[in-house]
């Protein structure tokens, strides 16, 4: 990706509510026309970060720069950003047209310009003849598109979206994901998107910012955070994963579950404890004697395009995805190619345990 100018800079942002720290050390820059997603479980501070950018919360420490200018103390109505709120926050006493026209009317634009722009927006969100309708008569998906139109009509440089698809059903959500991405590319506006849905983040984003407990865990492209997670938390939160305690024998050789595996990671030292990440789809099931590991199939679940199998090998329980089913109770061999082993610095014990990350349960193939 070509280097674009930085539009928003968060410098050392922290936020406390009544002495409770909800954001720490947030340093983040967002480039022009980027689709940036703040991703994390609830309570991780992603919405607070967005509200600080929008001007609805004031950071306890730190600065917010917009195009190089300090906007830390600027009230929301003076910022060149617009927000799509979580439950849309459409004005119930105004009809669809008036809702979309609100920002332009406040800015005292000429009437024919307002009419032209609102009509254009209604066309953009495919609700052309809905202007006179009351917002409460619309479905969730339609309200959602009105909320987007109401924000976009002001031609903001940055659009903030706070879990905008959270209230929609799965099919509609997937359609809207593509729709949003299309709009963002067409209009050339910077999107800052908050979600707890990792699939949504992977689908739409240029950059994903993974957050937890008020700290940024990792910033990177979807491919980066999926393939090269910096911690067990990120690995578990984004997609499903097997995380195993292991030992780095030396560069490019790691030992876990009693076997040595060649890998491609370097620089962890010799005989150093590490966390080993293997995605379920990267574990290969091989005949019993051909794998480096041996395991017993404990359970098999049909998931559509693949089977999800739980395979016990010694004390370790692996989750394996494969299109070929192995019968429950059978003994199989397990192996993994060096490129698919990912080594991470070890995390505190409780976080490395194999857990059924609830978020990843939503993942559908």
């Amino acid at each position, binding site marked *: 990706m070509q280097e674009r100018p930085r539009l928003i800079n968060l410098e050392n942002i922290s936020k406390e509510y009544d002495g409770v720290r909800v954001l720490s050390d947030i340093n983040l820059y967002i480039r022009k026309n980027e689709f940036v997603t703040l991703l994390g479980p609830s309570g991780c501070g992603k919405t607070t970060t967005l509200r600080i950018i929008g001007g*609805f919360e004031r950071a306890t420490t730190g600065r917010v720069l917009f195009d190089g200018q300090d906007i830390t103390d600027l009230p929301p*109505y003076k910022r060149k950003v617009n927000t799509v709120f979580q439950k849309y*926050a459409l004005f119930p*006493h105004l009809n669809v047209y008036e809702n979309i026209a609100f920002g332009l009317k*406040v800015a005292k634009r000429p009437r024919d310009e307002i009419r032209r722009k609102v009509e254009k927006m209604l066309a953009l969100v495919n609700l052309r003849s809905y202007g006179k309708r009351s917002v409460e008569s619309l479905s969730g998906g339609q309200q959602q598109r009105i909320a987007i139109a109401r924000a976009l009509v*002001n031609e903001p440089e940055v659009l903030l979206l706070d879990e905008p698809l959270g209230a929609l059903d799965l099919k509609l959500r997937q359609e809207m994901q593509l729709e949003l991405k299309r709009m963002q590319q067409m209009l050339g506006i910077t999107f800052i998107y908050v979600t707890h849905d990792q699939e949504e983040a992977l689908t739409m984003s240029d950059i994903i910012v993974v957050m937890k407990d008020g700290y940024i865990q990792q910033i990177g492209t979807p491919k980066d955070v999926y393939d090269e997670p910096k911690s067990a938390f990120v690995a578990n939160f984004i997609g499903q994963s097997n995380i195993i305690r292991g030992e780095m024998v030396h560069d490019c050789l790691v030992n876990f579950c009693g076997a040595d595996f060649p890998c491609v990671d370097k620089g962890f030292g010799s005989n150093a404890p590490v966390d080993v990440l293997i995605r379920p789809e990267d574990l290969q099931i091989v005949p019993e004697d051909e794998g480096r590991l041996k395991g017993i199939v404990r359970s098999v679940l049909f998931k559509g395009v693949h089977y999800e199998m739980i395979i016990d090998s010694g004390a370790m329980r692996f989750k394996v995805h494969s299109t070929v089913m192995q019968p429950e109770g059978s003994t199989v061999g397990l192996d993994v190619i060096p490129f698919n082993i990912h080594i991470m610095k070890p995390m505190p014990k409780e976080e490395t345990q194999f857990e059924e990350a609830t978020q990843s349960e939503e993942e559908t193939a």
Partner: protein
Amino acid sequence: MSAMAFPPWAVWLMLLGLAAFAGMIALSIRRNRGIRRTLFAFPYGLWIVVFTLIPLLLIGYYAFTDRSGAFTLDNFRTFWDSNFEMRKQMLDMGFDPADLGIARGNVNMDTLIYSLWMAFLCTLICLAMGYPAALFMADRNFKLGSTLVVLFIIPMWMNFLLRTIAWMSLLEDNGLINTLLGALGLPRMQLMYNSRAVLLGMVYNYLPFMVFPIYNALSKQDPKLSEAAMDLGANAALTFFKVTLPLSLPGVISGITMVFMPSVTTFFIPRVLGGGNTEMFGDLIERTFLSADNWNVGSALSLIMMVLILLSLTTLRKFDPEGEGGTMI
């Protein structure tokens, strides 16, 4: 025993109502083979019949009859002309009332207009004071909000008569305020026995009925809506006038109703805090019933009042068709 008595049919009507009530209970138990939920509605039905429907019928009956029970519209004529009865008697005796200097009496009409004016002022003042108070109370960032709510509720724990009399001890010539003024070497003031004192008493008593419906409407409002307005470029004032205020209108309508209705029919407050020339319509009705012992004219006046209130309510309902502010009736 007063000269007025219940007509015998009213007693029969009440007995009939009770009998029908007992019959319906028996029928309901039999049909449902036991006690069902609908049974619990009957006490309210009985309440409405005995304390609302029958009294209303009685008021209608008295308003359109004279003391002998014969149909007449004279009671309403008395409303237009408070001297009507006197003039009629004179005419009957062969005198021309005009010769005796007895003209049309405007007392009843004037009292009604005065009551409406006072109620209007009271509602206006309550709105002007109540809206900002409700706004503060509903503001999540205002830490004293809930304290303010309690402060508004506490006086309502005390009896309304007591509260009004308490004002007397503050306002009278030797009352607390004048004693204080005297102690400071300032001239004493005539605070009681005028319309201002009556208005004060009314505002004091009815203010909570304005504050709470508005507070309700405001605190139910999603704070995200004002954030959205600000996000779209509206400053605090614009946000208030374009979003917060219009969305709280049902509460305002409800508050106006709840203050205006009891204000028009106010009685007792003018008698305690006002002088002789501050009689309001509620007092007039009371005086007509009790002092003048004229249930017929009293009923006619009550009916006129009721029609006026119903008219103003229907007008207000136009602004709040869904009754969101909890408008009564």
